[in-house]
């Protein structure tokens, strides 16, 4: 066991994780997930928000087992390797806001960094503008980090705090399986509190057990290897540390090969699945997301894995993402395949301004 532990924390860990994601994510598409969306942490949290009725965009509502697996797989690894250390107190409110703005930006692009790389590996060239935006957003975040930005220290918390997110995930799994319907709509028909899409991306998914097992496996690997799709770029620029970057590179290359093998590689700009061709807002949306993720210390996947270690501050970030997804689809901020939503460009600009203010004002308080 300890040999595996050492191997995954070595420089090979992120590469192994990247290879696993590169094989499994395109396979999830093959088994039923939406195009180039084998894994998309933001899209999947948006789908969960929809399934819980936080928004009523009928085409994107499903409790994605991959997300549940990410947290519980990470929890298993953290418990097995004695890294389950509940903690809290590092600017939870600001982390909640950053989670919201990260989602606003990512839903203008239509994907988190995981999906940006997977879209690229599927031949969706519009992802290039998103990835460029992501790099610029991370670059801005690095300027703040270099000039003293900090969300402050966390402190140890009671064990119970660390169990909150894993228990929420178990509850979501139960809701997914039993799909309770005890509300009534205007015509008196049974509806809610759980909503599942019957058409659109929300209706496309691999079998529950497959998605869950893949999520558990990746969650376990990623907790150990510290895999992070934003840290990959951040550490390369900030610390000249390529460990995580090689993981993302492995993800893209292996996903490309897997897509080729499965006949899922369709190069081009237009007609790509769950994507639009507006390069400016693909860029802008991911610039906002990249900045918010960097200020919060990691990509949405990493935030989920950290909740598995008992990190309640990351759990606040995830809560912000859930609420942000609800707002985004309720107030026409999220894009569709036709292009950006009515208020998409507005929220990207507003979000960038607010994240810059956060970057300028948050400093460690000396006591």
């Amino acid at each position, binding site marked *: 066991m300890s040999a595996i532990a050492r191997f995954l924390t070595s420089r090979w860990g992120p590469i192994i994780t990247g290879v696993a994601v590169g094989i499994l994510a395109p396979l999830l598409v093959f088994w039923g997930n939406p195009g180039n969306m084998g894994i998309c942490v933001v899209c999947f949290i948006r789908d969960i928000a929809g399934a819980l009725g936080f928004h009523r965009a009928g085409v994107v509502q499903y409790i994605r087992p991959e997300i549940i697996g990410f947290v519980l797989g990470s929890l298993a690894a953290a418990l097995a390797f004695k890294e389950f250390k509940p903690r809290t107190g590092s600017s939870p409110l600001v982390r909640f806001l950053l989670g919201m703005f990260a989602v606003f930006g990512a839903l203008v692009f239509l994907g988190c960094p995981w999906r940006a790389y997977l879209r690229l590996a599927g031949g969706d060239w519009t992802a290039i503008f998103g990835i460029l935006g992501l790099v610029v957003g991370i670059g801005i975040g690095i300027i703040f980090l270099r000039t003293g930005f900090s969300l402050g220290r966390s402190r140890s918390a009671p064990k119970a705090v660390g169990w909150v997110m894993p228990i929420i995930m178990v509850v979501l799994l139960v809701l997914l399986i039993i799909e309770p319907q005890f509300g009534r709509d205007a015509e008196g028909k049974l509806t809610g509190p759980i909503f599942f899409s019957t058409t659109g991306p929300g209706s496309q998914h691999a079998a529950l057990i497959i998605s869950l097992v893949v999520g558990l496996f990746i969650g376990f690997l990623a907790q150990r290897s510290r895999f992070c799709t934003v840290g990959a770029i951040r550490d390369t620029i900030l610390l000249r540390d390529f*460990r995580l970057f090689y993981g993302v590179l492995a993800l893209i290359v292996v996903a490309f090969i897997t897509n080729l093998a499965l006949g899922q590689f369709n190069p081009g700009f237009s007609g790509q699945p769950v994507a639009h061709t507006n390069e400016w807002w693909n860029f802008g949306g991911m610039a906002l997301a990249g900045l918010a993720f960097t200020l919060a210390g990691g990509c949405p996947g990493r935030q989920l894995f950290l909740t598995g270690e008992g990190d309640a501050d990351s759990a606040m970030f995830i809560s912000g993402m859930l609420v942000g997804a609800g707002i985004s689809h309720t107030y026409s901020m999220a894009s569709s395949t036709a292009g950006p939503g009515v208020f998409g460009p507005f929220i990207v600009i507003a979000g960038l301004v607010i994240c810059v203010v956060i970057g300028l004002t948050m400093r460690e308080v000396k006591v």
Partner: protein
Amino acid sequence: MTDIKTVDARGLSCPQPPMLTRQVIQKLDKGTVEVLVDSGTARENVSRLAKSMGWAVTIEEQADGSARIILKK
């Protein structure tokens, strides 16, 4: 007896522990620096950074689950 510089990175999240460590060791040609961390991730990142900059790394586990990383050059 030479001065030991201390970097207290306990409770700080990525990428602050290696960043703060680098700020300190970049200014030193040689000496001893202790870095206090309380997560496995910070321990690995600080150790990797220091080794890449030519510092010798030893880790002392603390009773409270944190670690004291001693960097020497």
